[in-house]
Structure formats: structure tokens, C-alpha cells
């Protein structure tokens, strides 16, 4: 029996177990994680019949008083790599850490996940939603000598998954909230942080970028409004080659939010990033000030603002509006402008048995223009039986294609849900798009049905048949990335 099959059987058995926490005096051992086992019973193209997909995450830790040592293991046979659209096998100990936690001092050795200065001086993270590991391996300390002061320092190495280079990072931050020890509703704060990031593009040839980021920020939280302002500078300490100029850059980011007499809230964001990041600045990710989280060039030459409002004018009616605009700080060809707008509405517990809602989105960027509408409604047959339906219309123009095609996508979804027992999903997507970005012809419809049995709150078993285009799929009440699929599959997922 192969290792793979043993893992399948053992992990499947874990579905019936939960709360794997053992206490021995002062020691506590815990093990948790989640796993997904998928078996392709039939594949339309015949290539992958019998293929198994296993995706597991195991988190193990031992607590002893203020100390904790732990690890995270990721196993994927295979994993669909979203960014490059390929599959790869993975079995790796992705995190290993030792931490000490007390009232005044936190210390970590090993894997470090930390942001400083709103991500403008450091952004080491793990983003499970997009399957991106982007953390540091090193050591860090946070010290709180008094309640209103926190001093953090860290150093380590980190590799952005697809870059192949290992950056060396030293960073520190001082956060002061002078009234933090009081119960006053006015809470000013000051944030000073800096990082030094050495980026070995090609250490063999001594091609190295050496960057220094310094940020000063501050603001105040008041009962009905708040404001924050950050100013940051980037200095290139060492350029990649002797002849290359040592460029400098700067960043400005501010936010202002207010609540209008419990009727609505308004928000404003402004950004201006002038040569602040470049293509190797993976540990720096300034705030977006956009609606959809996209950014035209990730902080190199962009400025813009966002305005928004949220309101629940009457109980059960939730409204949201946002508009964002961005363009270049320095005008270069091709000129890039971003315009985005979103209107959301959600109704709950107003209309008997029906909760409707929907959104309208508009996005106009350099390479893409799209408008998307998605009305949805839930009909309650009883309090435990419901049907949710939605239909999405999207009209999109992809300008980066030579013939600049405009096409329409539609997605119809119907989901029956019996609380805590069974759900059934029918998803039908159709398009008049002829070819994908690579010029390859694509199918025009994807028809998929899936029935899910909820074994317990931590485990479920599903059988699905049809085709999935691949991408973000929301089913069973949570959203995740699905790889493209055609055929019949059985899937067992569990959290333990």
C-alpha cells in the first residue's frame, strides 16, 4: 500500500475525531487541521479517471505554560496552483515555531507572520484564500513595558513562493497610544516603523537590491469618527548593478471614517505611491484604496481615492455603496486609469419567508472593463429548509487581446439547504466567449450538480457530477478556489 493510500485511510478516520487536545499537568498537546479527499470516479476526457486529490493541513502544537512549540504541515497530492494554472505535488512542513507569551513580552522563533505600518514597511503573511505562503523564518520580540506602548523588532529570511529568491529582512515598530490606559473614548496613536530588506536577485553574481523603508503614522479614534495618516519613504541603499541609479520613493496613505448619528457610516481612503514598490518588493504591500482588492501596479506609480457608505436605515435592510478612482502619479504610456463602483443591498427578516438581495459592480481598468449584476433570494420553506437562488450577468471586455473581444458570462445557481443535514447545489454557467487569454478555444457552458451530506459540524461528504470552469466557488456557505473539473467525483472534507 502506498504512502498516499495510508494517508487517505488514516486521515479519513480522523473525520470521526475532534478536539484532539490532551492535557498532562502543565503540558497541553493539541492537533488540528482540515483535510479534503477527492476521487474522480469518471472523467470526461478519460485521462484522470481514478485520480485522487488529497489536500490536508495539519497543525500540531505543545503548550507548556507561556511556551508553545508547533508546526503546520501542508500535504497536496496534487495541488492546483492558481497563479500558474498547473498541478504540483506538495508535502511540506510549511511552518515551525516556538513562542513565549506573557503580559509584557511576546517572543517568536521560527515562522513569523507580521505586518508593520499597515503593510507599508512589512507584510509577512499566509493567505489561505489564495494559497499564498509569504512569511519569514527568523526571530521576533514584542515588548509592552506599559499599557500604551508596544515595541516590536524582528529579523529573518523569507521567500515569496514563486520568486525563487530569499529576502533578508530586519524590521522594527514602535506604537504609542498615550490614552490607551484610560477609558476615554478619544484614542490618539502614533506609529513609527522601519525595515531593511536585502533582495538577492542573483547572489552568485552579486546582483542585490538593498532597500530601506521608514514610516511615520498617526491618528485618532473618536466616538463617531476616526482618521489615520501614514507617510513612508523608500531609499535604495544598494542597487543591483554599479551603474543603476539609487532611486527613492515615497508613499502617502490616509483614511477617514465617520458614523452619522447611527443612520449610516461614510468612509474615505486616499493613496499616493510614487516609486515606493517595484517588482521585487514582495514583503511590502501598501493598502489598496480600491473596492475589489486589485491594484494597477502594486505601489509603484499610482494614486487614487475611495469613498463609501454603509447603512441599515431600517432593521433588516443593509445597503452599501462605494466608488474608487485611481490613475498614475507620473503620466507614462500607456496611461492607466481605474474606475470602480459597487452597490450592494441585502434584506433579512422584513418580507415573510423571503430574504432578497443583490449587487451591481462596475470595473474599468486598463486591461479590462466589466459590469456585473447578481440578484439573489432565499426562500424559507420552514426554518430549517431553504432554497437560495441567484443569477449573475457579466459583460466583459478584455482589451489586452488583439481583437478586443466583448463577451457575456452568466451563472445560475440554485441551492437547497436542510440545516445541518443535506445541501444540494446546481450551478450552470454559460458564455459567448470564444477563446481564453491564451487564444485557446473554450467550451460554452458548464453544468454541475453536487449533493452534500453533512456528517457532523466538522465533516461532510459530497458527490458532484458535471463540469466546473475553475475559480472562486461559493458553496455550502463558504467560498474557496476550485480547480477546473469534468466528470463525476466524490469528496470527503473534515476539520479536526
Amino acid at each position, binding site marked *: 500500500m502506498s504512502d498516499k493510500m495510508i494517508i487517505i485511510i488514516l486521515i479519513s478516520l480522523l473525520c470521526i475525531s475532534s*478536539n484532539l487536545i490532551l492535557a498532562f499537568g502543565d503540558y497541553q498537546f493539541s492537533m488540528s487541521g482540515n483535510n479534503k479527499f477527492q476521487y474522480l470516479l469518471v472523467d470526461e476526457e478519460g485521462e484522470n479517471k481514478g485520480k485522487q486529490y488529497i489536500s490536508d493541513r495539519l497543525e500540531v502544537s505543545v503548550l507548556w505554560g507561556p511556551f508553545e512549540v508547533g508546526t503546520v*504541515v501542508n500535504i497536496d497530492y496534487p495541488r492546483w496552483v492558481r497563479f500558474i494554472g498547473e498541478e504540483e505535488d506538495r508535502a511540506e512542513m510549511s511552518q515551525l515555531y516556538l513562542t513565549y507569551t506573557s503580559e509584557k513580552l511576546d517572543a517568536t522563533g521560527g515562522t513569523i507572520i507580521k505586518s508593520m505600518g499597515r503593510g507599508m514597511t512589512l507584510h509577512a503573511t499566509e493567505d489561505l484564500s489564495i494559497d499564498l505562503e509569504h512569511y519569514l523564518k527568523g526571530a521576533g520580540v514584542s515588548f509592552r513595558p506599559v499599557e500604551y506602548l508596544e515595541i516590536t523588532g524582528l529579523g529573518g529570511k523569507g521567500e515569496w513562493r514563486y520568486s525563487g529568491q530569499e529576502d533578508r529582512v530586519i524590521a522594527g515598530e514602535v506604537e504609542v*497610544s498615550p490614552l490607551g490606559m484610560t477609558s476615554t473614548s478619544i484614542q490618539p496613536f502614533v506609529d513609527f516603523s522601519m525595515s531593511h530588506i536585502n533582495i538577492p536577485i542573483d547572489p552568485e553574481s552579486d546582483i542585490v537590491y538593498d532597500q530601506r523603508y521608514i514610516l511615520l503614522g498617526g491618528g485618532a479614534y473618536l466616538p463617531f469618527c476616526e482618521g489615520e495618516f501614514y507617510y513612508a519613504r523608500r531609499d535604495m541603499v544598494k542597487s543591483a548593478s554599479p551603474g543603476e541609479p539609487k532611486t527613492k520613493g515615497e508613499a502617502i496613505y490616509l483614511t477617514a471614517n465617520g458614523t452619522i448619528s447611527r443612520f449610516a*457610516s461614510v468612509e474615505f481612503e486616499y493613496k499616493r505611491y510614487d516609486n515606493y514598490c517595484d517588482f521585487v518588493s514582495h514583503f511590502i504591500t501598501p493598502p489598496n484604496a480600491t473596492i475589489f482588492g486589485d491594484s494597477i501596479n502594486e505601489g509603484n506609480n499610482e494614486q487614487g481615492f475611495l469613498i463609501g457608505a454603509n447603512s441599515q436605515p431600517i432593521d433588516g435592510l443593509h445597503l452599501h455603496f462605494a466608488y474608487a478612482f485611481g490613475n498614475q502619479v507620473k503620466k507614462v504610456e500607456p496611461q492607466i486609469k481605474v474606475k470602480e463602483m459597487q452597490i450592494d443591498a441585502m434584506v433579512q427578516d422584513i418580507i*415573510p419567508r423571503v430574504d432578497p438581495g443583490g449587487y451591481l459592480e462596475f470595473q474599468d481598468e486598463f486591461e479590462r472593463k466589466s459590469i456585473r449584476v447578481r440578484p439573489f433570494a432565499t426562500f424559507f420553506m420552514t426554518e*430549517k429548509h431553504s432554497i437560495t437562488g441567484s443569477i449573475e450577468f457579466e459583460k466583459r471586455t478584455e482589451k489586452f487581446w488583439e481583437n478586443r473581444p466583448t463577451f457575456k458570462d452568466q451563472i445560475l445557481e440554485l*441551492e437547497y439547504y436542510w440545516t445541518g443535514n443535506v445541501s444540494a447545489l446546481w450551478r450552470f454557467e454559460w458564455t459567448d466567449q470564444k477563446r481564453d487569454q491564451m487564444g485557446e478555444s473554450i467550451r460554452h457552458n458548464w453544468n454541475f450538480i453536487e449533493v452534500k451530506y453533512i456528517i457532523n459540524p466538522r465533516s461532510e461528504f459530497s458527490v458532484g457530477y458535471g463540469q466546473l470552469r475553475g475559480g472562486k466557488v*461559493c458553496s455550502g456557505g463558504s467560498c474557496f478556489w476550485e480547480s477546473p473539473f469534468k466528470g463525476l467525483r466524490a469528496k470527503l472534507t473534515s*476539520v479536526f
Partner: protein
Amino acid sequence: MFRSIPLLLVILALCINVALSAQAPDITLKDINNKSVTLSDLYSENVVLIEFWSTTCEPCKKQLPKMQALLDKYGDKGLVVVSIATDSARMMSKVKPYVNGNRYTFITLHDPDQKAWKAFHAPAEPYTIVVDKGGEVAYVHIGYNPGDEYEMESVVVNLLGIEGTWKKLTD
């Protein structure tokens, strides 16, 4: 070498497959007003309902009003509702306007560095945990579908030790 490690971990887990306790993690995070909140301070005398969410998660946004309804109904009987926003440092400015605009009064904490996310071993959003008065995890739920709030309410009512019904359709 790494191929054998997960196998060993799984075997180890099976060998000791006994659930003795599930103490809820103690974490200190800042709330949307920049004040520190320590979860163990809330566990001591209350039933605590925790929801992990983010401003980009649509099912989470459908669940939040239900959490507010539970707080409105059982807040004076010992229920505390805590929402933990997992928006990253670059997105977290959108959390407070969203919470205030929708008139949510539950405690909302920022978790941009995944401190609580990791401590609670959250697998996906939304992720709901109910902690009993002894500080132990009594219930977890992944995702949100319409009607899940009734299951959560029954857990809360049971832990609070009170009789309660919340039948929207028959009210």
C-alpha cells in the same frame, strides 16, 4: 524526508484520539476603537460566540445580522458576541465603517496578523465558535447557510441554561 512526517503525525493523532478538553485560546487583540481586548476576560462569566469574518466574504455578511439578533435577544442573559475581522493590514480600514454603518454593537476585533485565526485553527470563513462559561469550546461551525442561526441559537440557549425559542417564521 517531509513525506514521512505527516504520516507520523496522523498515526500519533490516532494513537491518542481522546478528547480530554478543548480550552478556548486566550488572545489579546485590538478592537475597532484601538482598545485591547483579552478573550479570557470574556470567557470567565459568559457564553461567548465568536465569528471569524472579513469584508470580502459574502456568506459572512449574511451571518453577521444573525449574530447581532442573538446578542439582542440573549445579551442580558450572559451571551457575549465577538466578531474577529481577518482583513489584512491593507484592507482593515473598511471594517469599522461596515460595522458601524450596519449598527452592529457586538465586539469587533482586528486580526490582521492571523493571531486568533491560527490559535483557533480556523479552516475557512465564516467560522463560528461557541465557548461555554468554563472557557471550553462547546461548538464549531464552518460556513453559513440560511437557517444555521437556529442551530447556533439552540447551542447558546442550552449553554446559558435558559428556555428560548426564536422561530422567525411562526412569530
